[in-house]
């Protein structure tokens, strides 16, 4: 199931390009730090230094090594991405499945809650909360996850509802299968492609939101982030320093986001086309 889905996703050029881009970025982040090591927090009097053999991207306004900050920022982005991706997918699947299987009042309440939370864009709510708690990475993961599972839960619920109504599920139930068996055998495998898609999209959204929060300055100031690097460097656009401070950071952020977006798009298209094919098969039989 997963393999077939993956094959299908790879039929979209977007997926392949996204993966290639992602692999290149990741390998740069692994290889380059081997040659350029510096303490990202260490300030010095050598400010606005252009790139040189010691520091690949020079130094910033307080003399910190930009490249090592870029690397740590990337690592933090990745942490947030993975954390939010997993946590919000978990929430989406949990609540979506619960809502679909429970039905009735619980379903109604949960879905109404989703409706309500979706009216105001999640980034705005996350900003106001972050403004008060000034989160570090773990807290950031939790806050972002709490407001990014909504659409996923809706999709999961719809999927579960449609699977639940399929004749073979009824048939299995009539053979005497219990709910646990039905869930493991008939429901979960069908949800795995969707979960993978949600994971990827959750990761993308996390990087996106994390950068935004850091840019606007509501994250804990001790956390190194691409977003805050961009907003700091923007203050010195009139100096040449943007070429090795702003540009590489913006580039790293853009490329990571584009990579994740493309993979997510490819997965989603594959998901849609496979579910449409499922429909035609159902219509034929």
């Amino acid at each position, binding site marked *: 199931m997963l393999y077939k889905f993956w094959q299908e996703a790879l039929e979209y050029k977007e997926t392949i390009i996204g993966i290639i881009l992602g692999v290149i970025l990741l390998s740069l982040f692994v290889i380059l730090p081997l040659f350029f090591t510096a303490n990202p927090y260490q300030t010095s009097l050598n400010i606005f230094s252009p790139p040189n053999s010691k520091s690949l991207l020079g130094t910033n306004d307080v003399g910190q090594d930009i490249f090592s900050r870029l690397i740590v920022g990337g690592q933090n982005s990745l942490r947030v991405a993975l954390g939010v991706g997993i946590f919000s997918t978990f929430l989406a699947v949990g609540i979506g499945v619960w809502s679909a299987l429970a039905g009735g009042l619980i379903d109604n309440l949960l879905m109404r809650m989703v*409706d309500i939370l979706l009216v*105001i864009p999640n*980034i705005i709510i996350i900003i106001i909360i972050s403004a008060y708690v000034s989160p570090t990475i773990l807290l950031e993961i939790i806050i972002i996850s709490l407001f990014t599972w909504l659409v996923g839960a809706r999709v999961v619920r719809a999927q579960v509802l449609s699977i639940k109504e399929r004749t073979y599920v009824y048939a299995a139930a009539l053979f005497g299968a219990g709910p646990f068996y039905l869930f493991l055998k008939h429901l979960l495998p069908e949800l795995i492609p969707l979960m993978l898609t949600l994971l990827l999209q959750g990761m993308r959204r996390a990087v996106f939101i994390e*950068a935004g929060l850091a840019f606007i300055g509501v994250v804990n100031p001790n956390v190194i982030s691409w977003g805050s690097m961009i907003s700091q460097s923007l203050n010195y*656009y009139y100096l040449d320093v943007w070429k090795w401070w702003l540009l590489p950071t913006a580039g790293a952020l853009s490329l990571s986001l584009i990579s994740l977006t*493309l993979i997510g798009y490819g997965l989603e298209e594959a998901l849609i086309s496979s579910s449409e094919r499922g429909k035609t098969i159902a219509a034929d039989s």
Partner: protein
Amino acid sequence: MKQREKLFTYVATLLFIIILNFLLPRLMPGDPFLAIYGEEAALTLSAETKQELIAQMSLDKPLWIQFGAYLHSLFRGDLGYSYALNAPVSSVIAGVLPWSALLVGSALILSTLLGFVLGVESGWRKGSRSEKLILFSIIGISGLPSFLIGVIFLLFFAAQLDWFPLGGALTPYSDFTGLTLLQDILKHLFLPAMALSLTQLSEILLLTRASMLTNLSSPYVHTAAAKGLKPLGIRYRHAGRNSLLPVSARLGVSVGSALAGSLFIEIVFAYPGMGDLLHQALLNRDYPLLQGIFLTIAVTIILANFLADKIAWRIDPRMREE
């Protein structure tokens, strides 16, 4: 969703936002007064005024009484007082609202029109080389946060090429009037509006395109072709018109996301709207202002959703029944 259910959702959303706003500062560890008024206030206020304020907000009473007091002041239109700016929050916000409306409004119109037309054309030409390329780049751009696009625009078109001003909404200390004033406003508006609409474009384009693909294989489109309509007529009068429905149904969401995007864009371009104000409030830890902005944005989005629903009902005859 039926109209009544939607209305319920909006009311509930408003309630949720108010409760969140009320609880956030009060759940913070430490002195709630500090969390509500910010450090600036603590430094400038005398002990008596402080006591007075505590009494006024019932901060020494149980939570539910505090909530009552909070609601009471909200209903009187009192959003609090910004001690950092030394002005009532409501008047500070009212001062920046027009600029935000201008930016968000123009970006929305631009992105909706452009996204719709591009979506129609891209659906019509599905699979062609140029369409694939455009789609690919649009998807790529759609993943970028608005501030990033803003930064790139600012760097190239303002800082490097010097085609547009670096920031603000007006040239400071100039006494332009009439046409020159309008020109000045547009010049300052151009880059932020373009950046913002670019981030909004992809969603509308993809939505229109997906809808076009369904509609183009609909029987009435076949009929239109058989009727001898020119391709343009088939595309816009029939397939396009129907593809407008999902776009209009999503208008409310679009307003929300454009508004969210504008917060960042305004910071980049120092455009004196809500985003810029939010940035200042964050820098100054000006909590009353922060709360006021949050509430205003939420109410605006809810109202926009409500209006957007009305428009969608107007456009789609099938929804009018309900």
